């Protein structure tokens, strides 16, 4: 009954929470990240205008400068869309794709890393060789190539329907080797510990041992990498969308907004591109700072 309360109390008493409270950078970046996430998640209710609803957009409102009218705090773009609302809805797509891609790569990386580390032998050699090969290419290039190949290989109407999934897959698949290697390393250590031997002695299957006994003990470092990968995934998605090969135009992300705004940079309407750019950098920087803090907090040796 009082177990959840006990857990909260234990957390508030923990080293991690203390290290968080006493680090101004961590608290500040957590606040910024929270604002970004809330703004994105609550966009349909908080945003001044619904930019996805074409009926509410009026060309007469185009190119309003920022800080001029109360209904258009950050100005409006060439179509008359409110920039602030566009950022909130765009941040939604950016976060959604980023989080899904990180979840995907983490699940794949952890699963393959566990299998490679625990089973060893041919599976290990094969998987790690594959990871080595992929690691010689930059993650961004892998994501771009996977996305490009999917774009060329799928019929257009199929691609349009699953475009978001394709981007998630492309970004996710580009970062699995790093996670798999880390998990494999920790699994090799855990494999020979006594609790694993005991589980084997009582006749548990390999799958069961990996999933319920080894897994919880190798997840610590994964948390740090996943946080840092989130920043990377958001940047990668934004870059792909900026290049015009990312998310579909019907679901604009921050990268799409910057791509649109880039066309008006030379003619003086700087706010269309710069505000989404600032939002993107704020989001990524806060996530990266949190990741850095988490790495130092979970790894006392670095202090």
């Amino acid at each position: 009954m009082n177990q959840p309360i006990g857990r909260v109390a234990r957390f508030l008493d923990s080293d991690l929470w203390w290290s968080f409270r006493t680090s101004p950078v961590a608290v500040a970046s957590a606040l910024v990240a929270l604002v970004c996430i809330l703004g994105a998640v609550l966009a349909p209710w908080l945003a001044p205008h619904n930019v996805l609803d074409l009926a509410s957009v009026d060309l007469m409102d185009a190119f309003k400068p920022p800080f001029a009218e109360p209904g258009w705090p950050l100005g409006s773009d060439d179509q008359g869309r409110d920039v602030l609302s566009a950022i909130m809805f765009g941040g939604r797509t950016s976060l959604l794709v980023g989080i899904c891609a990180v979840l995907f790569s983490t699940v794949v990386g952890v699963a393959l890393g566990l299998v490679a580390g625990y089973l060893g032998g041919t599976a290990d050699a094969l998987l790690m060789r594959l990871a080595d090969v992929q690691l010689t290419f930059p993650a961004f290039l892998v994501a771009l190539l996977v996305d490009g190949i999917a774009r060329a290989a799928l019929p257009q109407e199929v691609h349009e329907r699953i475009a978001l999934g394709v981007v998630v897959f492309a970004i996710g698949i580009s970062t699995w080797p790093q996670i798999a290697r880390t998990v494999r390393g920790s699994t090799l250590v855990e494999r020979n510990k006594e609790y694993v031997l005991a589980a084997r002695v009582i006749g548990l299957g390999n799958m069961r041992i990996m999933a319920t006994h080894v897994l919880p003990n190798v997840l610590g470092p994964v948390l740090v990498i996943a946080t840092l990968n989130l920043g990377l995934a958001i940047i990668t998605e934004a870059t792909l969308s900026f290049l015009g090969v990312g998310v579909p135009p019907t679901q604009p992300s921050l990268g799409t907004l910057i791509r649109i705004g880039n066309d008006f940079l030379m003619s003086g309407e700087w706010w269309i591109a710069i505000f989404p750019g600032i939002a993107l950098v704020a989001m990524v920087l806060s996530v990266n700072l949190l990741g850095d803090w988490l790495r130092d907090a979970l790894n006392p040796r670095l202090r």
Partner: protein
Amino acid sequence: MVAFVISRLLQALPVLLAVALISFALFTFVGDPVAAMLSQDASAADRTALVHLLGLDQPWYVQFGKFVGNAVQGEFGLSYRLSRPVSTLIAERAPATLELAFCAAAMTLCIGVPLGIFTGIYKDSWVSRLLLTISLVGVSLPIFVLGMLLILVFAVNLGWLPSFGRGETVQIGWWSTGLLTASGLKALILPAITLAVFQLTLITRLVRAEMLEVLRTDYIKFARARGLTNRSINFGHALKNTLVPVITIAGLQLGGIIAFAIVTETVFQWPGMGFLFIQSVGAADIPVMAAYLLLIALVFVVINLAVDLLYYLVDPRLRAKR
């Protein structure tokens, strides 16, 4: 040494073959060249004849062999989008990309390594702290946002530098260079900075971390005890021992520069291979995509080989083992 190079090359071969297979699969399964080449009222016999002429009725491994044979000779057919030979297109664009990548790489190493050494040696000075904070922002700043900011400040507001293109180029044989004209050099500044900043921050942080690591070791303490000068300790003993990881990362960075050249070229409409590739992805121009894919794979294999060979030169322990 020779055996080492050969074993490395043999390891690289499967990678290249796998990439070639992907490119080949793109050609084979996407689009229908026969339908595109035949006229509307062609008969089934015409079709069979053309299929036979193109060799499409042969088993896939024969076709794949031909594809690889052609690829080795740089023959990828015509671009769907521009109707010109892919090899010509790439040869025209390669100098632009290579000049950009080379300048960015030079900038990265010439600024990043000294900054890393400085922040490593003077780790508690406020200059180092400031540099590290800036580098953290640099890591979080997407390359295209940086490019846009530079354009906004130096091209739109100040009007000092051009915002797109390569400026005037001079033709030397088949190589077109922008390094010999004033407008070419001016056009190079912003893209090169954009491309270099991200890699620069990474290399600074890496060199710093390695310097800190090495400066803690016993042989550095011993060198200090012997009364050697700081200069000789920092550069003669410490820096040399940071080189192995730095070379690995520098190799990876060269790869990163080539990958992110795609983004930089798009922001600055730089007429290089990356810009060509992005346009091809948008238009599903498969011959160009396939050629670029193979070329990139080749470049990365060469970079990795060069990194391995440099290890050999830098780390005597590796030489002794063989």
